[in-house]
C-alpha cells in the first residue's frame, strides 16, 4: 500500500498527549508545585512567545542564528564531502589520516570556545567556525563510509569498459554514496544548530543565543522559557526538513536504513 491514510488514532493520540502535557504544565505552575517565578505557566510562556514574535528584534535574532547555522553547515559540506571522497576512495590516504581523524573527531567542540574568543573574537567568524567544526566530522565520516561501500564490481566493470577515473567518480561513486552523505547532512545540520546557538550564548554573538543570555542575566524567566520554546521549534523545523530530504534521497534505496544518531 503506497498511500497510507492516517487513522484516527494516529492523529488523536499524539494530540491528546500534547494537550495533557500542556495542561499538566499549567497546573504544576498555577498550583505552586513549582513556583510561577521558577516555572512560568504554560499560558504565560506561550503569551510571552506570542508577544516576542511581534517584535522585530526576535526575527533579526532568528535570522542571525539561521545565518550562522547555514554558513557553518555550508562550509562543513564544502570541505567534508570532497575530503571524505578522497580519503574514502584511497586506501592509503585513509590509513595515513586514520589516527588524526580518530583523535580530532571525539574532541568536544565546546573546548574551543575560549580559544575562539582570543583568536577570531566574539563575532560571526567564531560562530561559523564552531558550527563548521562540529558539522564537519559526522559528514566526513559518513562520506568516507559511503565511498567505501560502493559496489566494487560496478567500479571494476566500468574500469574494464575503459570508463575514465573522473567519470567513474561522477557516475558510480557519487550516486551510490549519496544516501550516506544525506544522512551525514541530517546529523550535521542538528550539530551545526547546537554550536551556532552555543557560540551566541557563550560569546554574546547576536542571535537567539544572545537573547537567552540577556534574559538570564536580567532574570526575565518568562522570556527565558518563551525563547527556549522558540529554539526548540527551530530545531524541530530543521530536523523535519532534513529528514524529508533524506527520505527523498533514499526513495530508490531498497533497505529502510536504521536510525543514525
Amino acid at each position, binding site marked *: 500500500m503506497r498511500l497510507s491514510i492516517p487513522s484516527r*488514532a*494516529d492523529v488523536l*493520540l*499524539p494530540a*491528546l*498527549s*500534547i494537550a495533557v*502535557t500542556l495542561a499538566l504544565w499549567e497546573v504544576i505552575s498555577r498550583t505552586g508545585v*513549582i513556583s510561577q517565578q*521558577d*516555572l512560568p505557566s504554560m499560558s504565560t510562556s506561550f503569551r510571552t512567545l506570542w508577544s516576542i514574535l511581534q517584535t522585530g528584534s526576535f526575527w533579526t535574532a532568528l535570522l542571525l542564528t539561521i545565518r550562522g547555522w547555514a554558513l557553518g553547515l555550508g562550509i562543513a559540506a564544502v570541505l567534508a564531502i570532497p575530503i571524505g571522497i578522497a580519503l574514502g576512495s584511497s*586506501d*592509503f590516504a585513509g*590509513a*595515513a*589520516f*586514520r*589516527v*588524526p581523524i*580518530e*583523535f*580530532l573527531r*571525539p*574532541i*568536544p*567542540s*565546546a*573546548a*574551543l*570556545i*575560549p*580559544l575562539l*574568543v*582570543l*583568536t577570531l573574537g566574539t563575532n560571526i567568524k567564531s560562530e561559523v567556525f564552531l558550527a563548521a567544526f562540529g558539522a564537519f566530522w559526522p559528514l566526513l565520516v559518513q562520506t568516507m563510509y559511503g565511498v567505501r561501500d560502493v559496489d566494487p564490481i560496478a567500479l571494476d566493470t566500468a574500469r574494464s569498459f575503459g570508463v575514465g577515473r573522473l567519470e567513474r567518480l561522477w557516475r558510480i561513486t557519487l550516486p551510490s554514496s549519496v544516501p550516506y552523505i544525506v544522512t551525514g547532512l541530517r546529523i550535521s545540520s*542538528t550539530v551545526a*544548530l*547546537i554550536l551556532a*546557538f*552555543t557560540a551566541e*550564548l*557563550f560569546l554574546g554573538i547576536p542571535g537567539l*543565543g544572545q537573547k*537567552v543570555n540577556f*534574559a*538570564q542575566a536580567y532574570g526575565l*524567566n518568562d522570556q*527565558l*522559557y518563551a*525563547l*527556549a520554546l522558540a*529554539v*526548540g521549534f527551530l*530545531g*524541530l523545523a*530543521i*530536523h523535519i526538513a532534513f529528514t524529508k530530504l533524506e527520505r527523498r534521497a533514499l526513495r530508490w534505496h531498497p533497505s529502510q536504513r*536504521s*536510525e543514525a*544518531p
Partner: protein
Amino acid sequence: MSTRTYRTLKVAAEIAVPLLLLLGWQLWTASAHSIKFPRLSTILVDFQHMWLFSQFETNVVPSLERVGLGFAIGVTAGVALGVPIGLSPVLRKLSMPHIEYWRAMPPPALLPISIILLKSIGDRQKISFIAFFCVFPVLLNTIDGVRSIDPTLIETARSYGVPRFQRIRRLVLPGALPQIMAGMRNSLALAVIMMVLAEYFSSTSGVGYVLLISKNTFQLGPMWAAIVLIGVLGYLLNLVFLLVERRVLAWHRGWRAAAE
C-alpha cells in the same frame, strides 16, 4: 609494487602522518612567537604540571563523576522508556511528539532553565542536565532496535508461555542491544560536550571551569593544557566504550560472521 611493500608503506604512513602533524604544530608555534599559540612543548609541560596529578583530584575527578553519573542515569532511563515504547504502538503514538521535540532542542538553550529549576550550579544540576540529554540517542535507538526484532520470535515465545518479564530479558533486550550500544556511544560523546558546556557556563570546579578561569586570567598555557585534556578525555572515553562494546557484542559479531 608488491603487496607487502604497499602494506609496510601504509603502516608507516599511519604512524608518520600524526607525528608529522605534531612536529608541524611544534615548529609553527615555535616560529610564530604568538602569545595565543604557545609552543606545543610548553603546553605539554603545563599539561604535566596541572593534570599529572596536582589538579587531577580537584578538577578532573568531579568532571568524570558528572559525566559518568549523568551518562548512567540517561542510559538507564532511555532503555527503560524505550523498551515499552518500542513494544507498544499506542505508547509510541503518545510519546513521539515529545521525543521529536526534545531530541531537536539544542541543549544549551536549557542550561539557564536547569539552573533556575534545580536552584543549583553544583553536581545536582550538572548531572541532571547531562542525564536529560543523554536519554534521547539511547531512547530513539532502543525504540528502533526493539521494533526491528522479528515479531515471529516474540510470538513464538509468547505461545510457549514465556512470561513477559522473561521475554523482555532474554529476547527483546539482547535483540535490541547492538542498536542500544550505538545509541550509548552517541550519548557518551554528547555527555562530554555537555559537561564542558555546563561547567563553562557556571561552576566552581571541573575541567570546564579551569578552561574558563585560565582564559579569563590570560593563562594561555594552562588554557591550552585544558583543551588538550578535554580532547584526550573525549578520545579515551570513546576508546574504552569501543572495547566494552566489542566484549558485550562479541556474540553478535560471531553470529553475523557465521551468517555471511
